[in-house]
């Protein structure tokens, strides 16, 4: 992508992503509420919450957790920008991985029982989905012959036709990333947790808002990755991503939270197996 376009695309992504994910979040909360027999909050509640948090007084435990919060925010936004300007998907996966590391380190930077356990469980979550994500990108290479995202747009064959099992495995990743049951183990998006608030227990006010914003960028990143599975025309991909998001919400209200050991087993035994089979079949036919 040309440099001028890249800058424009990056800025648009940085501005639009929070708006889009905020709106999706609003839909999520209302639909979940209705499915649970409640009325639910106003549609724009996520934005109200965000602004309210930004306006609160700064309360911290120590300054180390703030550094890592900035790191999480910066690297999440950076990953989204890199994906939108059609850069190397593998490197982008490493970047979002480091964003997750920053979040975990922020939680682990305070001597707090809930925060610490949340941080360790965040590491277990990363251990569950990282291999799937990394192997999936190699699958994208096998399908398209390049790691750059623009190669996906250049080809008319939709990625989902070549990597259907990888797509299913990525739904597992999406569930973990969105922190939906059964994988809302380190922290959860709603107020049902067993570790107070897990990873974000010791964050409040503006820095909680910063982390929320980082999480929105992260969500946009995974949804964009899913939409790449039908890149020509892209509106089908966007539709697929939207349907995936809605189905995540459905899974969330119907499943209970499981243990991290179950998550690890399912991710590796099911997710990695699906990716491995897909890669094996694809590489066999590529010969």
């Amino acid at each position: 992508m040309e440099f001028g376009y890249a800058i424009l695309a990056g800025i648009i992504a940085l501005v639009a992503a929070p708006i889009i994910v905020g709106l999706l979040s609003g839909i999520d909360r209302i639909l979940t509420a209705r499915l649970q027999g409640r009325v639910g909050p106003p549609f724009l509640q996520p934005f109200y919450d965000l602004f309210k948090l930004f306006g609160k007084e700064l309360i911290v435990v120590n300054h180390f957790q703030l550094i890592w919060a900035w790191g999480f925010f910066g690297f999440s936004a950076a990953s989204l920008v890199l994906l939108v300007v059609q850069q190397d998907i593998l490197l982008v996966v490493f970047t979002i991985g480091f964003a997750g590391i920053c979040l975990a380190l922020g939680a682990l930077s305070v001597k707090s029982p809930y925060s610490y356990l949340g941080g360790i469980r965040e590491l277990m979550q990363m251990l569950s989905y990282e291999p799937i994500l990394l192997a999936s990108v190699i699958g994208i290479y096998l399908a398209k012959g390049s790691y750059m995202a623009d190669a996906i747009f250049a080809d008319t064959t939709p990625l989902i036709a070549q990597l259907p099992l990888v797509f299913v495995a990525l739904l597992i990743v999406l569930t973990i990333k969105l922190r939906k049951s059964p994988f809302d183990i380190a922290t959860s998006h709603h107020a049902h947790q067993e570790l107070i608030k897990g990873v974000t227990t010791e964050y409040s006010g503006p820095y909680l808002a910063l982390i929320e914003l980082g999480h929105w960028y992260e969500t946009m990143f995974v949804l964009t990755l899913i939409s790449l599975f039908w890149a020509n025309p892209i509106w089908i991909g966007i539709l697929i991503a939207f349907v995936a998001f809605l189905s995540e919400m459905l899974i969330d209200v119907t499943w209970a939270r499981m243990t991290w050991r179950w998550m690890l087993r399912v991710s590796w035994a099911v997710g990695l197996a699906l990716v491995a089979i897909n890669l094996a079949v694809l590489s066999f036919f590529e010969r």
Partner: protein
Amino acid sequence: MTDTFLVGFLILFPFLSAFIAWLTPSHSARTGWVWITAAAMIVASVMLMISGPTTIMIENSEGLSTLIGILDLLLLVFFLYVGIQAKSLVITLLTVAQLLPFIWLEWLSGAHHEVDPTFIVDPLAIIMVLVISVVGSVICVYATRYMKEHEDHLHLQKSRRPRFMFYMIFFLGAMNGLVLANNLLWMYFFWEVTTLICYMLILHDLTPIAITNARRALWMNLIGGIAFVVALIVASTQFETLSLRELATEHTGEALLLVPIFLLGLAGFTKAAQTPFHSWLLGAMVAPTPVSALLHSSTMVKAGVYLVLRLAPGFEGTAFSALVAIFGGFVLLMTAIMAMSQSNAKKVLAYSTIGNLGLIILCAGINTPLSIAAGIMLVMFHAVSKAILFMVVGAIESKIGSRDIEDMEGLCAVNPALTGILVIGVISMLAPPFGVLVGKWAVMEAAGTTMFGSISFIVVLLLALGSAVTVVFWIKWMARVMCAMPETCECKKEKLPAAYNVSLWGLATLVCVLSVIAAPVVTGLIVPAVSSWYGTQAGITSTAGLNLDFTIGAAPIIFLSIIAFAFLLIPALVIKVKKSAVRPVYLCGENIDYAAAWHGLADGRFDLSVGGFYFTRVLGEEKMNYLAIYIGAAIITIAMAIALFL
């Protein structure tokens, strides 16, 4: 002319300098001499890089070769003496098994092949010399201060520091000789010198466990030595050559070539402590920390993977290559799993080192120009990062008296400078844009392009899993270090001694700068290294804007460096919290003593304590060790079968 002088200087000056250091009785004079040596070595290696690739042929080297042969013989006789004195059957038998073939090869086999050229100063050798001379010299400077504190802690009557510095500095010369030599007999000599120095340095403290572990290191490396000699015999008789370059590049595809290559590879595996030979490196952690930093992470173990990388063109495109890749991937995953259960910081670093060496061997196994370039990149960046980590762990151990991760809890509030360097060290192993991660990214890209059909996804899975597990054990450690109480007091700024400041901050700065300029380093040094040995381009197109561009992918290093600078470095330096903003952690409102304890069962006082996760029930070292040894040995056996019979 100057190139010959530089090569001679880089090999021989450390030998001379070591003797001077040994014979200097005054500690401060010796320390000053070490600083001078370090400066000289760094300057010489940079000059070698600037003067560029060349080859050096030493005319009429019969005399020198004979001298080296005699010194080799004395070395092996010394090992025999060690074995007899220790009443160790293993060491004695292994030495004899090495001595007899060596005597045959050196004096009884007849034709002594002229090796042309004697030394090859190609870009890969230049990179290795830079790593050895720069990182090694910095570690020697660190060692001057560390050993003083070490001996103070031990209340030694008679200082053993002269002896220590002798071996450390001598080692630099031996390593330089090893990586510059093209004559395999000369390389073998330097190889065995490093084995000797490794043995001498591990047993430095003369405790029973040090002596035991030194002997274990010795016999495992002797296995490698035997493999080396037998490989030389095969090369000499079957292929009439003792030139590394000729063996690796000019006989590809010939029958029986895989035999010396497998044997040399086995020597490399023992030197690099790959499974099943990994226990000697774990045991070597009882040595003083500069030894661990210099020998057992940055340089000596790199000699093993250096040799495997050199040999890679020889087994390109064979089933043997696929097996080497799987072996490397297995070591990566296995050692990452084993590191999860360790609370001894140096053992975590040791396992991580072995894993990264496995990753480099995986690069050699994938055997495309891109993967070899990734391997060289990993050699360089891992050496710097690991040196930082070992040195800072040594400094921390001096400060708190323990190398256990559990004792490092909350270190960031007590020792912010050391913690900062520790964090930089760990982040430089994990994060974009640092070199180790970029190297890992490059090898993963190369793994996708592998030509050996449907088993390439085994390599991909091993890489993906290994990569994910390494993150967990690093961050688990960081968790303990960062686990700080509420910030109610001012962090007192501790002052580090000059030697620590120079070595730690120097290498920390180096890793950051080197990572930012990784693209020019790759195109300037690494791509020529691959091209000159492989004869093909490395599939790297341009470095426009200081970003790495491959034909299949790109790394926007500058962009990521800016992000890291803006969102990690700046906040780390700038963010301060007001006392009024600090609150205790959430303990359900039952806090006692601010945040130190809480009202628990029956309103009793429970002190808040946080502990690390070590998964010892599932991932205990005993169980994992069996898996590591048996599966590792199995893969090597299969590789040997392929080498012999296919």
